[in-house]
């Protein structure tokens, strides 16, 4: 299990694993190549590259599925949810970790409920109707923030426990208040874990189908995953266009993944060592 030199056994393992990775790659290739095919060729569902590349599928699906509007909506929703969730979690995580009293213990349990209990749909809708924000982005955003708080609170609070307190006391002597202490000293030190929370919440929000499906019922507020869901119903024989839509929904998250891989991995493995 330890690090030894490259042996024949490892070569075999390398080859076997490369073949196993096809299980992940083949479905992705069917979609990616399919997005550039004609409708007749795409419906053969094979993993071959297209005989002729048809990039015009993308502008066609962009117009037909109203992707411009959906893209703008999804971006707005994701940005607000990410921004608010992260600030709320960092600020509260700071107070919870630093106080470390009975209130903190209670709040750790309280917020962790969100990791376990599924959302109660009907009462949530009633609540949004009561505030007159049902079928609006504001309503969806508030519900999404509350369902993302738990995870962020968990990883941020645990990280803040590891930051030494000496600086806090120095700041107090310098006449620094809690808000300034948090924004000028604590927050900069949280950078890696804040970034991983940003990426994880962004992905969860962008990819979510369940909440928009229940809480947004108007075409003007459509989100990216909803476009595919609706589009597939209407153009179910044009698999090339469906595949193109899938590529466009997945693309921003793949780009985010490629650039922020380090932070996603750090966030996903938080708690794996000391649970």
């Amino acid at each position, binding site marked *: *299990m*330890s690090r030894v030199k*490259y042996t024949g056994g*490892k070569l075999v*393992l*390398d080859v076997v*694993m*490369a073949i196993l*990775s096809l299980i*992940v790659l083949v479905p*992705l290739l*069917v979609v990616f190549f399919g997005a550039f095919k004609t409708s007749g060729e795409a*419906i*053969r*569902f094979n993993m071959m590259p297209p005989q002729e590349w048809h990039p015009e599928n993308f502008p066609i699906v962009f117009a037909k599925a109203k992707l411009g509007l959906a893209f703008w909506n999804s971006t707005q929703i994701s940005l607000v949810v990410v921004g608010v969730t992260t600030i*709320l979690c960092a*600020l*509260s995580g700071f*107070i*919870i970790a630093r106080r470390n009293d009975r209130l903190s213990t209670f709040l750790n349990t309280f*917020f962790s409920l*969100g990791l*376990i*209990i*599924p*959302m*109660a749909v*009907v*009462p*949530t809708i009633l*609540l949004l109707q009561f505030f007159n924000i049902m079928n609006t982005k504001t309503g969806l955003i*508030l519900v999404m923030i*509350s*369902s993302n*708080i738990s995870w962020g609170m968990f990883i941020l609070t645990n990280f803040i426990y590891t930051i030494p307190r000496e600086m806090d006391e120095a*700041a*107090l002597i310098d006449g620094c208040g*809690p*808000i300034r202490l*948090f924004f000028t000293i604590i927050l900069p030190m949280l950078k890696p874990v804040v970034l991983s929370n940003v990426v994880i919440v962004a992905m969860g929000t*962008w*990819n*979510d*189908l369940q909440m928009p499906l*229940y809480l947004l019922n108007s075409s003007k507020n459509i989100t*990216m*995953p909803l476009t595919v*869901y609706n589009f*597939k119903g209407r153009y179910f024989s044009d*698999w090339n266009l*469906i595949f193109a839509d*899938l590529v466009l*929904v*997945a693309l921003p*998250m*793949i780009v985010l993944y490629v650039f922020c*891989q380090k932070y996603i991995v750090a966030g996903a493995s938080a708690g*794996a*060592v000391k*649970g």
Partner: protein
Amino acid sequence: MQDRLYPKYLLIPAILIFSVFFILPVIGGVYISLTNWDITRPVIRFIGLTNYQLMFEDTDFVLAIKNTLFFTVAITTLRNIFALFLAIVLTQSLRTTTYLRTVFYIPPVLSYVVVGIMFTAIFQMNGTFNQILGFFNLPDKTEWIANPNTALLTVIIMDVWKWTGFHMIIYIAGLTAIPQDYYEASRIDGASFWKQLRHIVLPLLIPAFKINITQSLIGGFRVFEQVLTLTGGGPGHRSTVVGMMIYEYFGRGFYGRSTAMSMLLSVVVVAVTVVVRRYFTRKEMTY
């Protein structure tokens, strides 16, 4: 000093938003689940546990419970076995390690909608899966999604495909945290690979097991989008799950009944999570 530097009022925004938009609906749900509220009824009446009683007389819902339990056990087992295998292999300093870690983590970043429709294409009669079976001359071709005996299986395959990489990363983090000295010391004592696995790796991976197994169980019980995007619960109700029934009853306007199902699911998820977490916390140890 506690209150000067770390004032409680800074907790208010988070507590407020979480209480109002998450906790309050769950509490309200308990009440709604005890009423006869549906879309056709002008007057809402308290009817006690009737919704819960009726749920179990509904054969589709009983099937949904069975399917959800089967799905949860299946994905928890498969995701964790595959993820642990991948993690052990990918901590062996192979040439392809970076490539493999990158590839196996792509599925978790994709939306269920993307993965669901992708697998719809794969499992068509003339789809990629049957083409691969044909290539190896395997005879058992079928319409995987429309076949009542395989529909739920396709959802399980899709779920395991999507999440194995996520659990793999957590096991890798757990494995890399084990100090190298332990392996070296045990090798000097003549321990084989399997002995090392049994007596060093598995016990020290308990925190990773705890997080991976609870996450899989919670994900399993809450299954919804996987079924919605791939089989829609069909054919008939053969691959339906509790999350799907909640959606269906909601769509038909049975708000009381739909909420009762949701409350039942919440109680089960909380109970199972608490028991499993306790079990692993008791087993946690350090050398």
